[in-house]
């Protein structure tokens, strides 16, 4: 593989951006690093595990050892795979702007849209951390509020937060829908199915 690599020039659309370092398009190395860190954690915990006395041979450490080996091997293999393979170009910067380059027919444009819809890899290349952050934040607020404030309000906050993150901008309507949704869930699942949800501050009123 390495011997033949210099002979075949990389094809134009997989070549890294000029100016980008070797790491550009190789963010998956972070996944490999995470796996190796997990393997190290497994190894450390297995080695220091408190095993009750009189445990016979295939004890509680046996299977963890196997999984640690698998995890290490998978992490190394992934790192090698990412390092050897030509990097995935960042979609926004290095992909040619086809729509500008040549006029497209209406049909052609539709097909293009369909293609991005069913093959989201290119658009998914960069994660929109702001939107993800709002969704994660809404869940964190929900976790903090649930037991003190109760299901009804915290559930509504979660619904509204996610809806806002995903582009819902009719604030008053969305708050209304969020409250209705969380009340219906409360009535349906606590009332009809007997689930246990915290009533919180509204517990006395309802």
């Amino acid at each position, binding site marked *: 593989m390495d011997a033949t690599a210099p002979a075949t020039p990389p094809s134009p659309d997989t070549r890294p951006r000029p100016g980008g370092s070797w790491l550009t398009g190789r963010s998956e190395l972070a996944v490999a690093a995470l796996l190796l860190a997990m393997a190290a954690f497994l190894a450390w915990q297995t080695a220091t595990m408190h095993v009750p006395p009189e*445990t016979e041979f*295939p004890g509680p450490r046996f299977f963890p050892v196997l999984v640690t080996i698998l995890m290490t091997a998978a992490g190394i293999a992934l790192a090698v795979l990412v390092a050897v393979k030509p990097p995935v170009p960042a979609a926004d910067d290095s992909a040619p702007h086809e729509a500008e380059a040549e006029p497209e027919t209406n049909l052609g444009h539709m097909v293009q849209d369909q293609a991005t819809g*069913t093959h989201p890899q290119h658009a998914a290349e960069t994660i*929109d951390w702001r939107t993800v952050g709002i969704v994660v934040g809404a869940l*964190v607020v929900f*976790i903090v509020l649930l037991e003190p404030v109760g*299901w009804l309000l915290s559930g509504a906050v979660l619904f509204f937060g996610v809806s806002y993150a995903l582009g819902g901008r009719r604030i008053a309507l969305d708050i209304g*829908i969020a409250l209705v949704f969380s009340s219906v869930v409360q009535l349906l699942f606590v009332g009809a199915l007997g689930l246990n949800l915290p009533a919180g501050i509204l517990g006395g009123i309802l």
Partner: protein
Amino acid sequence: MEALDSLLVGFSHALTPTNLLWALIGVVLGTAVGVLPGLGSAMAVALLLPVTFQLDPTGAFIMFAGVYYGGLFGDSTTSILINTPGNSSAIATAIEGYKMSLRGRAPQALATSAIGAFLGAIISTALIAFFTPTIIEVALQFGPAEYFALAMFAFLATSAVVSTSLIRGLVSLAIGLTIAMVGIDQQSGAERFTLGIPELFEGISVVTVTVGLLAFGEVLHVAARIHRDPARKDTVRGTGRPWLSRADVRRTFPAWLRGAGFGIPFGVIPVGGSEIPTFLAYGNEKRMAKRRAARKGTPDEFGSGAIEGVAAPEAAASATAGTAMGALLGLGLPTSATAAIMLAAFQQYGMQPGPLLFERNGELVWALLASLFIGSVMLLILNLPFAPLWAKLLLIPKNYLYAGITVFAALGVYAASSSVADLVLLLLLGLLGLMMRRYEIPLAPVLIAVILGPLAETNLRRALTENQGDPSVLVASGISIGLYVVIVLAVGFMAVSRIRERRMERRAAEAPADAEPRG
């Protein structure tokens, strides 16, 4: 016939008003999540699992099975109408189905796919109803070593076959096995990987893992790109009466049967779902059309909307559902993500699928099998005339849809244990799900590893203990040797076809650039 008697008794239990209602709720929900891209029956069953804990188990399983079957019926509707497969199992249907709809034959394509899904489901369900006694006889000979081999088979087949790369499949498997090990070891009482956190002593609940990875992970994945993807206007077209002409039926009927033939064996092989048989069935029809064109001069319609290209993959997809239920009930072997979650549901109710299930919970099992037939009929009625109506589900605003899913995910995880710690785990697992989707690491191996991991470990240790630690016991019986041989063959076959694929890609890349297809 013993099976027939049991099945008739099953029908008498399944035909009660309550159980019919559960079946109806299941198939409606299943069709809905099938139609909606990004949602699937696995996520739906995972979300339903905690909130149905209070239900009678028979009703709950009838509903879950309805969701499973419904997902395979609903996924083709949007494939055909707007070229957006509701699930990966309908990608093959989209190829010819959308072309048919562009030619104004959408009603015929929808009818072909609904009837194909119905036939596939009925044929495979009938097969398992009559052959499970045989499966059980084999399964009763399984000891610890054989169960370990079966789990290894499930692990490696899912990781090697379903994902685009074997390494990413193994990554997923390792993550799943790690999650499965957290908690106090049942056999020795040793505390493992809990970091002394009391909430982790009982292990990480399967509900939290599935809801976190499948539901919340999907919400985060949508959030990660909703403002990046170009906005799409989905216009739903193609209404009309779903009549198939006699000429159509003559062409589709054999294609349905061939498709079911591809699907049936794949229900028992744990390859994480029904995509592979749908593509095999599609490829087979395409080859046959080419041969027909060469021999008899009948026009090869593939590429411009061939009805066989819709019929065969649809029958194949739903045929896997029946045999997958058979493998789940008779062997305790989950062969798809949805089946894996249903196995977790059985465990939640204190039942263990496998040969003994038919003895201990015979009434439930036969009522469930009978309700699979009833559900298939319901699905045919729901999907044949109303398919374009289902496609209107796409008009639900995305922000409300995913907000609702998030609230439901949080509700289910909290309700299962009344523990805030599980909600924190939900958040972490959702982020893990986002990372795995971002780097195309498949999710099915994690789920199968989390659910079968404890079984694999227990049986491995039991087998070794019974034989004073001698590992040769693992390959001492014909059944286990057979399973290992199949694993080696399957992985070898995949490796060879991958290498061939890559070589073809390289050849295509070396070809002149203007030969590349555009648009």
